[in-house]
C-alpha cells in the first residue's frame, strides 16, 4: 500500500517511527523544510550551543530503509482526491492510497502595520533561530510580542544574547492560558527581577522607524494607549495557527477558526486522509503540545496496520494539557482546570512573596478530588499532583498539606505505590507505571537502561523524578538492593558508614572493618574509611595505624606520576605569593632538577621528585614558610582569587584577603572528593567562582555564595545559596555546607553530583544550612571548628618524625635510587623518558 505523509515534523516523524517496520507499506514523506524532523520542543537549546544535528530526531540510518522515501524541500501544494495524487510545488505528483497530513502550525503574527519590516521575526524553525542569532548580533534591544509560554522562552533567548529584553502582552497578565491572576503577577515580578521588562495590556498598533539611528532604536512600536517602545528587533510569538491550507484547497472540512476536522480515528472528512498533530482539530480543540500529537500518531499507525479491522483499533479521546516548564529560570506548572472554571469547584491557595512561591489547588465541590493546580516559583510536586488529578486519587485529609511548605523536610502527598499500574508516568511517550514495572522486572534496573528500553523521560524529561521513584520503589519491593555499597567488604554507603563511625567512635580502619564490615578490605574501602576517620577525628594521616590504608598519594604526601616519581605542590593561599617565596620555589626546583608548571589553581607544581628526595625538598620548603598544598588528598585544593578591590578598578570587595582566609580555614580538610573554591572581587567573576564547589562573588553589600559547581569532565554551574551576606555569615554558611557534604557525600562524589543526587537538591541544602530545618547547624559548625583547631601541616609533621621518614626510601635494603627513573631534556626542563627511548638505549 502507498502511504504518503505530508510534513516531517515531530508528529509526522513519530508516525514514521511507529510504521517503520510495518509490512507491505511504501511510505513517501514530503518535507517542506531543508532537513528532516528535529526536536522543536528543545529548539531553544540551539541558542545554548546545540546544533541542528544535536536536535535531530532521526536515528542514524533511519531513512536508509527501502520502504521509506524522504523528499526534502518538497512542499505539497495540492491534493487531487479523485485521482489520489499529491501535487508538489515543482509540479511533481505523488500517488497515494492513504494520506496523512502532519503539517503542524505556523506562528500567528497580528495584523499590525509594519510587521514585515526587517528584523521582525518569528520563532518556530531552525531557520528562524538562525535569523534571530544574526539580528541579535546587530541589536541592543529586543522585544517579544506575546507573553505566553513560547514568548517567555523566546525572551530568555534574547536576554541570553545580551539584549535589553521586553515582553509585550496584549492580555492583562502573562501566560493567560496556564496560570491565574496571582500566579501571573508573581511570574511577572520574578521575570522583571531578572531584567526582562514586561508590558501587559498593550495593543500594538503600528511599527515604524525608530528614533535611534541604527542600534538602540531601529523600530518604534506604537501602542493603543499612546505609549511607545524603541527596539532593534521584534519576535512575534502571539500564538499558533494550524497549517490547513492543503485541506482548504482540497475541500476537506475545517473548523471555523481553522484546523482540519478529525474524528476519534483521526480521519478527516475524506476517509483515506488522516490529519495529526497541531494541524488537526478534534472536538473544537487544537492541541499545541507534542504529547497529544504523539498520541494521534500512534493511533493512526495502529489504524493503518489494522487495515479493515481499523474500527476496533484504539481511538483518540482527548489529551491532558497540563505542563511544567522552566521559564526564564522560573518553575511554572499548570494542571487540568487551572483557572477553576468547573462549576462549584473550590480552591486552596498558598502565597509566599518572600520566597516567591505561589501554589493553588482546584478541587471538586465535595472537596474530595483534585482537578487542577497552578504552581509558580517552585514546582517540585508537579508529578505527584498531576498523577492525583489524572487518576482520581482521593485527596488526603488535609489537602492544604500538598502545597504548604513541609516543615520537617519530610516527603508529602502520595507515595508512588498509590498509583495504579495504568497511571501514565511519561505522557510524551505514553509510558505507564505498569510499563515501567514490567521493564524493571525484565532487567532494566538502572535509570539509564529503563529510559532506553521504555523511552520514558526521553522527551521533555519532566517525568524523570517520578520514573526514578518508580524504579527505586520497585527495586526495593523486589528485594534487589539499591546498591550503593562501598565494596564487597562494607554493605554500607559512605554516608551510612560515616554515621556508624561517628556514633561508634571507631578511630582506625581495623576497628571499623571489625565493627561494620567483613574481611580485610581493599583499595576502595581503605582510603574511604581513612577519609571518614580523618573527617571525624582529624587524626594525622601519617600515624602508623593509618599508614596502611592511605592511597600512595596520602602515604607519601605527594602525587604519584606515571613514572613513579612524585610531584610537590606547596600551598599558595589565594594565589598570592611574595617574590622571596617565588625565588625559594625556583631555587628548590633548580637544586633538585624538577620540572615546574603553573597549575590551573594558581599555584606551582614541581614534578619529577624521587621518593627519597621528598623529605629534603619539603624540608627546604617548610623552612621558607611553605605548607603542604594537599594536592595529593581528597581535600581542599585551592581557593583561586582575582586581585579584587585592592588593585582592580572594578572590584567592590577584597577578594584576595577573603580567599586567603577561606583557604587557611579549610586547608587539610578531608572530604569525599577534592574540593575547589574561588573568590571574585566583583560580578565580572574573573576567578570563575561559579565553576567551583564553593564560589564566592563580591557584591556591593557583601558576598554571594555559590555552591556545587564543577569544571572537569562534566561541567556544572554553581547555584546561588545565599546573597549579600557579610564575612562572618559567609564563613558560617561555608562551614555548614562543607560539613553537610562531608557527612552525606558518597565516595568520590564531587559536590556537583552530590547535590544532583540529593533529594530536594539545592532547596534541601538551603533548608538545612540556612533555615536549620534539621537543627543540625550548631553541630556542623562545631565539627568544623574542631577541624580548624586541630589542623597541622602534614609535611612539617612528617619531616620531624623519624618513624615516618623511614618510608621515604626507594629500597628497604639500599640507599640507591631507582635506576628506571630517567629523564630527558625538553624546552629546558626535564621530562620522563618514554618506554621507547629507554628501549632504544639498551639495544646496541
Amino acid at each position: 500500500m502507498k502511504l504518503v505523509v505530508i510534513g516531517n515534523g515531530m508528529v509526522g516523524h513519530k508516525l514514521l517511527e511507529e510504521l517503520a517496520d510495518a509490512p507491505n507499506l511504501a511510505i513517501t514523506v514530503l518535507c517542506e523544510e531543508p532537513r528532516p524532523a528535529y526536536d522543536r520542543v528543545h529548539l531553544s537549546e540551539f541558542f545554548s550551543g546545540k546544533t541542528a544535528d544535536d536536535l535531530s530526531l532521526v536515528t542514524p540510518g533511519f531513512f536508509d530503509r527501502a520502504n521509506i522515501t524522504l523528499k526534502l524541500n518538497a512542499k505539497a501544494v495540492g491534493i487531487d482526491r479523485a485521482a489520489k495524487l499529491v501535487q508538489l510545488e515543482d509540479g511533481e505528483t505523488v500517488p497515494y492510497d492513504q494520506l496523512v497530513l502532519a503539517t503542524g502550525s505556523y506562528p500567528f503574527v497580528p495584523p499590525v502595520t509594519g510587521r514585515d519590516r526587517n528584523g521582525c521575526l518569528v520563532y518556530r524553525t531552525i531557520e528562524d533561530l538562525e535569523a534571530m542569532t544574526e539580528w541579535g548580533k546587530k541589536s541592543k534591544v529586543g522585544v517579544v510580542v506575546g507573553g505566553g509560554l513560547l514568548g517567555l522562552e523566546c525572551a530568555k533567548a534574547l536576554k541570553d544574547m545580551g539584549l535589553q529584553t521586553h515582553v509585550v502582552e496584549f492580555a492583562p497578565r502573562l501566560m493567560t492560558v496556564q496560570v491565574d491572576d496571582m500566579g501571573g503577577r508573581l511570574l511577572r515580578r520574578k521575570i522583571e527581577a531578572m531584567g526582562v521588562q514586561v508590558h501587559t495590556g498593550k495593543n500594538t498598533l503600528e511599527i515604524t522607524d525608530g528614533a535611534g539611528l541604527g542600534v538602540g532604536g531601529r523600530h518604534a512600536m506604537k501602542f493603543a494607549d499612546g505609549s511607545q517602545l524603541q527596539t532593534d528587533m521584534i519576535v512575534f510569538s502571539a500564538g499558533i495557527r494550524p497549517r490547513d491550507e492543503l485541506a482548504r484547497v482540497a475541500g476537506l472540512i475545517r473548523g471555523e477558526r481553522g484546523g482540519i476536522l478529525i474524528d476519534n480515528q483521526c480521519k478527516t472528512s475524506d476517509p483515506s486522509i488522516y490529519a495529526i498533530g497541531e494541524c488537526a482539530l478534534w472536538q473544537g480543540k487544537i492541541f499545541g503540545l507534542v504529547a497529544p500529537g504523539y498520541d494521534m500518531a500512534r493511533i493512526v499507525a495502529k489504524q493503518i496496520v489494522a487495515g479493515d479491522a481499523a474500527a476496533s483499533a484504539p481511538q483518540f479521546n482527548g489529551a491532558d494539557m497540563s505542563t511544567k516548564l522552566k521559564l526564564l529560570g522560573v518553575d511554572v506548572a499548570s494542571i487540568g482546570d487551572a483557572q477553576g472554571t468547573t462549576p462549584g469547584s473550590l480552591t486552596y491557595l498558598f502565597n509566599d512573596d518572600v520566597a516567591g512561591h505561589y501554589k493553588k489547588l482546584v478541587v471538586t465541590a465535595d472537596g474530595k478530588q483534585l482537578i487542577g493546580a497552578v504552581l509558580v516559583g517552585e514546582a517540585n510536586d508537579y508529578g505527584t499532583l498531576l498523577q492525583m488529578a489524572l487518576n482520581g486519587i482521593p485527596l488526603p485529609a488535609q489537602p492544604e498539606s500538598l502545597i504548604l511548605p513541609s516543615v520537617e523536610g519530610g516527603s508529602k502527598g502520595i507515595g508512588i505505590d498509590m498509583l495504579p499500574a495504568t497511571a501514565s508516568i511519561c505522557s510524551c511517550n505514553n509510558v505507564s507505571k505498569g510499563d515501567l514495572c514490567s521493564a524493571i522486572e525484565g532487567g532494566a534496573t538502572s535509570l539509564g537502561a529503563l529510559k532506553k528500553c521504555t523511552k520514558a523521560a526521553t522527551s521533555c524529561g519532566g517525568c524523570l523524578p517520578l520514573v526514578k521513584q518508580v524504579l527505586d520503589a520497585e527495586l526495593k519491593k523486589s528485594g534487589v538492593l539499591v546498591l550503593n555499597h562501598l565494596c564487597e567488604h562494607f554493605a554500607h554507603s559512605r554516608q551510612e558508614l560515616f554515621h556508624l563511625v561517628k556514633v561508634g567512635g571507631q578511630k582506625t580502619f581495623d576497628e571499623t572493618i571489625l565493627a561494620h564490615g567483613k574481611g580485610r578490605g581493599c583499595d576502595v574501602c581503605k582510603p574511604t574509611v581513612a577519609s571518614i576517620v580523618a573527617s571525624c577525628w582529624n587524626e594525622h594521616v601519617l600515624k602508623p595505624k593509618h599508614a596502611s590504608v592511605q592511597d600512595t598519594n596520602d602515604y607519601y604526601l605527594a602525587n604519584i606520576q606515571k613514572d613513579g616519581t612524585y610531584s610537590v605542590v606547596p600551598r599558595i593561599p589565594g594565589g598570592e605569593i611574595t617574590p622571596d617565596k617565588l625565588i625559594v620555589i625556583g631555587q628548590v626546583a633548580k637544586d633538585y632538577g624538577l620540572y615546574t608548571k603553573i597549575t590551573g589553581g594558581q599555584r606551582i607544581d614541581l614534578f619529577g621528585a624521587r621518593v627519597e628526595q621528598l623529605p629534603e625538598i619539603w624540608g627546604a620548603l617548610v623552612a621558607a614558610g611553605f605548607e603542604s598544598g594537599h594536592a595529593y588528598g581528597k581535600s581542599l585544593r585551592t581557593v583561586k582569587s582575582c586581585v579584587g578591590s585592592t588593585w582592580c578598578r572594578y572590584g567592590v570587595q577584597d577578594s584576595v584577603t577573603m580567599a586567603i582566609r577561606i583557604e587557611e580555614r579549610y586547608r587539610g580538610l578531608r572530604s569525599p572528593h577534592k574540593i575547589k573554591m574561588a573568590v571574585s572581587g566583583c560580578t565580572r567573576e574573573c576567578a570563575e567562582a561559579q565553576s567551583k564547589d564553593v564560589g564566592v562573588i563580591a557584591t556591593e553589600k557583601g558576598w554571594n555564595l555559590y555552591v556545587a559547581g564543577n569544571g572537569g569532565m562534566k561541567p556544572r554551574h554553581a547555584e546561588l545559596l545565599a546573597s549579600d551576606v557579610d564575612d562572618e555569615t559567609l564563613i558560617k554558611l561555608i562551614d555548614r555546607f562543607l560539613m553537610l557534604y562531608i557527612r552525606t557525600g558518597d565516595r568520590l562524589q564531587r559536590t556537583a553530583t552530590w547535590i544532583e543526587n540529593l533529594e530536594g537538591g539545592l532547596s534541601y541544602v538551603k533548608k538545612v544550612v540556612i533555615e536549620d530545618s534539621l537543627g543540625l547547624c550548631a553541630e556542623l559548625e562545631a565539627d568544623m571548628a574542631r577541624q580548624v583547631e586541630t589542623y597541622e601541616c602534614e609535611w612539617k609533621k612528617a619531616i620531624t618524625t623519624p618513624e615516618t621518614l623511614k618510608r621515604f626510601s626507594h629500597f628497604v635494603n639500599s640507599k640507591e635510587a631507582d635506576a628506571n627513573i630517567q629523564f630527558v631534556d625538553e624546552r629546558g626542563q626535564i621530562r620522563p623518558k618514554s618506554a621507547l627511548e629507554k628501549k632504544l638505549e639498551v639495544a646496541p
Partner: protein
Amino acid sequence: MTDAASWTFVCHRDDIVPNTGVCAKVGDAQVAVFRVVAPDGTEDGPDNGIFAIDNFDVRSQANVLSRGLIGELSTETGPALVVASPVYKNHLCLKTGRCLEDEAWSVKAWAVACGDDGAIMVRAS
C-alpha cells in the same frame, strides 16, 4: 630443601609497617615485599603474612608495586590477597603475581621465607 647461597636477607619483619610493602634490591632486581596482617592482628599465611612479587608494574612501566594498597578481593578461585598498583589500580595477586584485570600485566612471584625470628629472606633466581 633450601639452598643457602641463593637466599638473600632483605629486612626484618618489623621494618615493614603492617599491611604495607617495601622494595628490596635482590641482585639487580627490584622485589616488592609485603607484610599482611588481618584486622584482628593475626599474621597468617605460609610465611607469617610475608609475600614477594616483582616491584615493576608492567602496566605503568614503573617500579611502584611496593607502594600499592593491599586488599582482599573475591575471585573465581576464592578470596585472594592482592596489591593495587598505585598508578592505574590494576590488582596483582600477592601469592602468584597474576593480574586480575589482564593476564598480560601479571608479574613474577618470588619465593620468600620469614622465620619466627622475623628475618625476611627472598630467593634470588
